Structure formats: structure tokens, C-alpha cells
């Protein structure tokens, strides 16, 4: 995707946090980018439609609101269609995010990954058990996070 310099400036401005000292946060952002507020909001709406912006909103610290369990579920599903079926079941849970099929490696057979968030570990385990039950796929594991070393939004430009 080839972005113009102005578009890169807009991405740079939007990849951070809106200014919190004004009732009209898009105004100073637009000024900073050398565009009008309408032009900024139009670009943002279009990018959201096209999927370049996956979401524009509040990113929560989920642990601060009780979602303390964070499991990376890994599934070995060699059949492509079956992997799609497991992914669909996983995706049906609002507590599941970042569901990807990934490359495997010599000592790593797990090709399907999904983050499962829960109020506690039991909740994560229950969701995985349910997906296993529905699909018949039993070769899966949950890798819970124990220490968070870094969690930031990417700075692209």
C-alpha cells in the first residue's frame, strides 16, 4: 500500500492517543497533519471501511477490568478445511481474539492459534474444551501468560 506523505502523517497521528484536553480531539490532530477536520474524519472513515484501520476506539487494559487470564491456545489441525472449522468455532466466542493459522516448524506441529481471554483460567479452559468437543479436535494446549514484558501499540511511522 503506497501512502502519500500526508497519509503517513495521518497514520502517525492516529497510531497514538487522541488529545484528552479538548472536547474536539480531531481538530488539533487535523491541524498537525495539515488537513481540515472533515478531511481527517473522511480519511479515517474510509480506512475503517477498507480495513486499513481495523478499529478506532478505546483499547482497554483488560486486566484492570477483571479479565486476568490470558491463554494462547494452540491447535494441531493438519487438514485445511478442519482448521477452518475449528477457527470458526473459536471465533464464535467474543472472548477469543487473534485467531490465525500459522506456519509450523520441525518441532512445532501447532498450526492454529487463538487468544482466549477469561475472568480466570477456568473460563479459558472451558472455552477450549467446548471448541474441542464441537470439532472433535483433541490435540490442543493452552499456554497461559505468566509475565508481561512488553505490551504496546506498534509505531509505524
Amino acid at each position, binding site marked *: 500500500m503506497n501512502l502519500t506523505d500526508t497519509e503517513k502523517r495521518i497514520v502517525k497521528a492516529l497510531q497514538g492517543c487522541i488529545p484528552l484536553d479538548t472536547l474536539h480531539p480531531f481538530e488539533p490532530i487535523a491541524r498537525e497533519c495539515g488537513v481540515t477536520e472533515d478531511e481527517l474524519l473522511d480519511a479515517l472513515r474510509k480506512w475503517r471501511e477498507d480495513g*486499513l484501520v*481495523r478499529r478506532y476506539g478505546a483499547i482497554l487494559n483488560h486486566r484492570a477490568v477483571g479479565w486476568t487470564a490470558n491463554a494462547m491456545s494452540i491447535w494441531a489441525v493438519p487438514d485445511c478445511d478442519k482448521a477452518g472449522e475449528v477457527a470458526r468455532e473459536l471465533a464464535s466466542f467474543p472472548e477469543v481474539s487473534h485467531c490465525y493459522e500459522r506456519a509450523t516448524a520441525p518441532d512445532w506441529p501447532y498450526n492454529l492459534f487463538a487468544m482466549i481471554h477469561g475472568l480466570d483460567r477456568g473460563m479459558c479452559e472451558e472455552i477450549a474444551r467446548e471448541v474441542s468437543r464441537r470439532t472433535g479436535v483433541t490435540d490442543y494446549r493452552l499456554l497461559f501468560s505468566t509475565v508481561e514484558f512488553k505490551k504496546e501499540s506498534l509505531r509505524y511511522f
Partner: protein
Amino acid sequence: MSGIGAQRPQLESLSELDRKLLNLIQDGFPLAHSPYAELARDTGADEKQVFERVRELVRMGVIRRIGGVFDTRQLGFAGTLAALRAPRERIREIADIVTSYSGVSHCYERDDAWNLWFTLAAPSAADIESILEEIRARTGIADALNLPAVRVHKIGVRFGIGEPES
């Protein structure tokens, strides 16, 4: 850096307005000249009150950021999920090396032999490989898992903010 178990949920201190706002603005912050006025209409509160609560939620650390989440690939970057097997007594030292790269946005210790997991974004797959090579050299760990996505099924999550258990 934070031990997962050390964080105390602040659920009890959230008002009903806070919960409504958190549920609304995860999905989308209004793209408008007066976003707080729109949120006020949706929650039955007034604009100033909504503005104050949102600021407070950011100050409390309940909201990390209000902004855009971009599709890394559509922006033209390559990405991967990588992992190392770090000796337990060296894990902090190794995590410091890994997290020193700006392309590493997330890095966690997980309970497995492959105990250090991180996401890595860079302009190209070749750049990713060269960063991993540098990490291998700096840490002295020869083996790393490099697991790029081949298919995306779902990305977003929604954390429902409900009533605290009584």
C-alpha cells in the same frame, strides 16, 4: 513489566456510566467534531460528564489508549509470532534484549518449554529474519520459532464490562 497475578481488578470502582462508556467506546469512538456529545446522547449523561469520565478512565489505566488499530499487513509491513526457549535464570535478561526492538510490540513469558513469545513487525520478511538473527546472536540462543500467519480468521476481542460479583 508486571506479574499477571499482581494486577488488582478495579471493577468495583467503576460506575454504571463508566461501564456503559467502556462497552461503547471499545467498538468505536465517535468520529465526529464532538465525540463526547454523541456519547452523551447514547448514555443519557451530559457531554462534560462523559468527557470527565473518559479522562478519568485513561488516568486510572483502565483505558490504555483511544486511537487507531491498523492492519499491519495492509500498511505494507511484514509480521510474525516468534518464540525462544530461554533458560529460566536468564529470562529477564533475554526479554530485555527482545523488547529493545521497536518492532516487538508484545512480549510475554508463557508456561511451556518455549517460554518467551513475542510479536515482531518489520518492513519485509527479510528484515524480520535479520532481526531474529541479531536476537539469536545477542542472546546466544540458537533456536527460535518464526511462525508467520498464513491465514487470518479473527482479530478483535470485546471485553464485556459487567456488574462486579456481589
